[in-house]
């Protein structure tokens, strides 16, 4: 296969970073905003008291809320970023959806450790980001070689950066972290393999296009 790199048309910078189409990008931003708001509200609700009693004691319904929150976080880590990438490209939003829950924890509690939760957010966010670049290449050019299209450079560079960070995070969890955490992360952590493969292929075609 010999892809010819297009140097034109020059699209506005960053078009493919957030998403391929405006309306779908707004849907992604909306999801990100709602996710962040729900996680912030839940985190604060366990830290808020009314007349000395935590508000979570007011009703057993709070257990249902926390159950729903955990499902929302699980979906936002493993499923929604990939769905968004397939739906609209947009590596930045796909990545942010996966890491937003843990970043909210950092902002609200001041604590951030390289736990399985955070590491898998980084790793799945990176996978979705790389996938998003391929989706954009396919939707815009009918090609599965994002490296062959200059206007995807930004998206390819961003997804490469987060893929490196995610891979380093996973490696650190294995090398420096406790073995039980590494064991829990392992079945999902294999997603770095296709992530790195797609990045490598993207850059191979990018260098060939030079």
């Amino acid at each position, binding site marked *: 296969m010999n892809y010819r790199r297009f140097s034109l048309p020059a699209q506005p910078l960053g078009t493919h970073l957030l998403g391929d189409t405006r309306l779908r990008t707004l849907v992604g931003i909306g999801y990100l905003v709602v996710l962040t708001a729900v996680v912030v509200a839940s985190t604060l609700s366990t830290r808020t008291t009314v007349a000395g009693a935590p508000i979570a004691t007011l009703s*057993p319904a709070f257990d249902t809320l*926390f159950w729903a929150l955990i499902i929302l*976080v699980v979906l936002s880590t493993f499923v929604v970023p990939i769905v968004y990438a397939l739906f609209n490209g947009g590596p930045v939003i796909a990545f942010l959806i996966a890491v937003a829950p843990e970043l909210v*924890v950092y902002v609200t509690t001041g604590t951030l450790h390289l736990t399985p*939760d955070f590491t*898998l957010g980084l790793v799945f966010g990176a996978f979705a980001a790389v996938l998003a670049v391929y989706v954009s290449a396919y939707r815009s050019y009918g090609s599965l070689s994002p490296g062959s299209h200059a206007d995807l450079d930004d998206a390819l560079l961003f997804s490469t950066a987060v893929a490196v960070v995610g891979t380093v995070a996973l490696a650190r969890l294995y090398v420096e*972290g406790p*073995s039980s955490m590494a064991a829990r992360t392992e079945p999902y952590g294999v997603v770095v393999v296709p992530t790195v493969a797609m990045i490598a292929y993207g850059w191979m075609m990018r260098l060939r296009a030079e």
Partner: protein
Amino acid sequence: MTGRRDFLRKAAIAGVGTAAGVFALPSTPEASDALMSDERSPSANATDQSLSVTAEDTSPYALWQYKKRDDGYAPTSPINAVFPLSETERGLDDVMDVLFDAGWYSLPVEYVRYAWNRKRETYEHQQATAAETFYGTVGRRHVRCWELEGAVSMQAHEDTAATPSHGIESYRQAQRRIEQLFDEAGWTVDESQRFANEKSPDHHGHVTVIRP
């Protein structure tokens, strides 16, 4: 040429961003997560003990943690570590600090549970909680604590992955981890008591007693 220079500029920015991202990565919470060994674990070497706590009102220790339901409170998980601190300088905060120093999160996402307070004759909301990870998407160790009459009662368990809700993977594994953590922190972990709170999958009623 402009396109190439432009690309190199962006690549340099991405490289700096990548390095900054890697540099900004936080450390892992604990270097080790060893469990107390079978030989040293007081809860593992207590097969012939007679029951010491048989009901909620017989001791300052709580026996169970409870879930609030529309028709009252139902026991869910057994208390499996206790800290007799009434005659010491230490309290609940000192117990929790051992966990926080090991990198556990305070007030993670969790359900609301209660313990029986015999003095006030009421079910009391969890007073302090901690977990290895905030959400526990792929499982975690998690504790809830109450300080009642100067004694801390702890419920420790290992959660399953949230698929979609958390279940109990093990009580014993978390109890052994707590034994190890407090042993490493210089507390005395050489005693157990038998509570009437056996619960599947693996709690046999042997409750670890931890002293400063």
